[in-house]
């Protein structure tokens, strides 16, 4: 047992005008998880400390908190591994309003799932009809594996906590919701794939992810949300759902590399907006002027790189 200082962010809306950190010094029993430590503090030192928990076996998603700056499931994190110079910092999840201490408001998170219709769409859904259909819908083990990863999501909101896109745009569906969407898009039993992919390609959907990879890093389950988002983007392009900024951006990107081996940053924004999208194009002008004034505009004349043969070979290989 070693003495550790737990620095916990506290906030009680009934008393405090703003959050503050309170230190608790405690021996960490061998094998204790972060949740065990929070409970020991609550039960033996300060009953007012407030956090959520239920299953304590990493499956219900209640106990996610930030440990030393990043979200973790308290119940599955060994405390010993998180002690840095005798200290551990515990804070509520990010990108959410704090209700009290480590408890955040999850209503915005949960209510967003509705946007992607997270339920199987089949002719036989619901118990009334299924009385006729007395056998399971067949699904191959391979098809099961395509949705297995996303279906391990425990809705703990860890991914959202560190999501950069969510931080800059609260309307962004977020990693968990998009992973849930992938689980249905790729479900061999689902009959609404096209409709789903169209919906997901709109603003705040799959193209709003900035690819920072935080969600993959933070997810305590096997979901790897960003990988699911990439898979959705691939599906969208394959299905020809390309009439949107995100898909056009990707296509413009590919075109530019194919023709010159580098990004033509003058053309890509235009392609992303769509050549015929006059208001969209006009909206780019102020950005262009600001870039010019700050000396950040790309060169007007776009040159190709010397190794264009290599580029062509790569594209040929990819095509195969």
């Amino acid at each position: 047992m070693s003495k550790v200082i737990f620095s916990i962010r506290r906030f009680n809306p009934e008393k405090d005008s703003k959050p503050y950190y309170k230190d608790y010094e405690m021996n960490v029993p061998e094998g204790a998880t972060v949740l065990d430590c929070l409970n020991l503090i609550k039960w033996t030192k300060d009953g007012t400390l407030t956090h959520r928990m239920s299953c304590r076996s990493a499956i219900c998603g209640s106990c996610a908190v930030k440990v030393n700056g990043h979200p973790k499931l308290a119940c599955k994190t060994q405390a010993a591994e998180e002690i840095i110079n005798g200290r551990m910092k515990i804070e509520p999840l990010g990108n959410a309003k704090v209700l009290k201490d480590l408890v955040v408001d999850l209503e915005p998170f949960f209510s967003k799932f509705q946007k992607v219709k997270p339920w199987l769409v089949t002719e036989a859904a619901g118990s009334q009809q299924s009385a006729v259909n007395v056998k399971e819908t067949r699904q191959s083990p391979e098809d099961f594996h395509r949705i297995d990863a996303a279906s391990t999501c425990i809705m703990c909101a860890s991914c959202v906590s560190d999501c950069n896109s969510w931080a800059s745009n609260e309307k962004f569906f977020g990693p968990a919701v998009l992973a849930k969407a992938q689980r249905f898009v790729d479900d061999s039993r689902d009959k609404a794939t096209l409709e789903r992919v169209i919906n997901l390609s709109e603003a705040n959907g799959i193209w709003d992810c900035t690819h920072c990879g935080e969600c993959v890093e933070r997810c305590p389950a096997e979901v790897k949300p960003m990988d699911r988002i990439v898979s959705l983007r691939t599906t969208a392009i394959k299905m020809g759902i390309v009439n949107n900024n995100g898909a056009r951006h990707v296509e413009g990107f590919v075109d530019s590399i194919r023709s010159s081996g580098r990004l033509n940053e003058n053309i890509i924004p235009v392609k992303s907006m769509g050549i015929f999208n006059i208001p969209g194009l006009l909206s780019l002008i102020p950005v262009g002027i600001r870039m010019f004034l700050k000396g950040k505009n790309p060169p007007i004349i776009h040159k190709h790189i010397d190794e264009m043969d290599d580029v062509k070979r790569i594209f040929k290989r990819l095509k195969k």
Partner: protein
Amino acid sequence: MLTHDVIIVGAGLAGMRAALEVCDKYDTAIITKVYPTRSHSGAAQGGVAASLANSTDDSWELHMYDTVKGSDFLGDQDAIEMMVKDAPHAIIEMEHMGCVFSRTEDGRIAQREFGGHSRPRACYAADRTGHALLHALYEQVIKKADKIKIYSEWYILSLIVEDNVCKGVVTYDIKTGRLEVLRGKAVLFATGGYGRAFSITSNAFASTGDGIIAAYRAGIPLEDMEFVQFHPTGLYGQGILVSEAARGEGGYLVNGKGERFMEKYAKAKMELAPRDIVSRSVQTEVNEGRGINGKDYVYIDLRHLGREKILEKLPQIRQLGIDFIGVDCIEKPIPIQPTAHYSMGGIPADKDGQVIIDDKGTKITGFFAAGECACVSVHGANRLGTNSLLDALVFGRRTGKALMEFTGNAKLHDINKNQEISSVRGRIDTIMNTSGTESMNNIRNELKEIMMSSCGVFRNKEGLETCLKKVKELQGRFKKAKVTDRGKTFNSELIEAVELQHMLEYSEVIVVSAINREESRGSHARTDFPKRDDAKWLKHTLSYKKPDGGIELKYKSVTITKHQPEERKY
């Protein structure tokens, strides 16, 4: 006062399954103290039983016999028959709703072996079956968001029953600390189990028997409370579950001498004997000094299954071992000990979830119970693995249908709102305003220790009586225990105190029922009465709360249809 046609308390499999049945026609509310996907059903790992016969021959008749025998003949056979006949349909329905299942090569739902089942009939989604089912139901519930109002993080504190008619519930909004009466034509309790009263348990912090205590305080008896299932393979020191799937896939149990000791206790079924038998075997090894290094645990060894099979079939179990005790089961055996796991007892209900309060079939009009908080009784003295998810689904669904029928002809009742609120307010104030010196934490720990050591896998009169004395002492000390958080917002300290009060109350019921039952049957193993005694004890216990707070025990007969009691051998 809020009003809904149907009020469902609990958002586990039973509660949500029922909600889907009635919501199209009647305004339905679900009250749950945790967000629906946090319900403990999600923790179920191994599987859900149905005689789909996807990998071998199987039939409901075989499933029925296995269940009756597993229950040590205390299960009510009419209800069991109903459940196993409904099972294939209930599972197919879940599959059609979108539940993700592991598959056979030809695309059917995969099935594995489980203890006490004579055929591989556990349908599963890797080792996350409960999670897959819970999320599939949740998806359907949010599809019906306009018809089902969910009150997440609302806590029910009392059930309103007058003259055998149920009128509604009193709830506490955890986020704001506000008390609210919810009035309904029908109320369904699907509040889950009560394993938290034991020091080693696989149950969630939320499994504190709130529903059964609310019913008990409203004058409804509790049935067969002495039957608490101990699962043989809890992670040592933690109680977190290593699913029976680990044995279903071929894991060995090994003692300190390196022996597969199940050979001595259940030669034919070995590790796949029912849980009560395996738990007693583990405990006997430990008690007789054959634990690992003489300590209080043995090993479950999965190494011979090989890396690939473990990663494919038991990924979560492997991860739990790594995260919680630093053991990777691919390389090392996992230390395990019996853990309090499942509550066979509960609120007495019939096959349609209707709550019945005596042996004459007297109903509480408008009050229903389903899932682990109910005692139908399909599990009798010992539940077979994978039969409880099934129970929650089948009886959730049946009760939903019963609610449909009932609600059509039912009416709302007058409730004296102020009186109901002030009585619950009084109870909270009493807890909040004690300025005593006792610590909730000590009381809780002492309760869990004594329940585990004296009312656990093995029991005897002397131990149980000491236990009862201790529980009563702790109840007294609780009155002097202090809550330091005076706030209204998310006062989890208050909630935990309320839950401790529930645990203290139902523990007494468990112990008193256990003292009285002078025989060994299923999970109830009395060293002083080691034999099953059908002549005297082939009957269900009913425990009533007397006006003076004491417990009155009555009994009711077991329904036997197809299978006469016989000796139970595996």
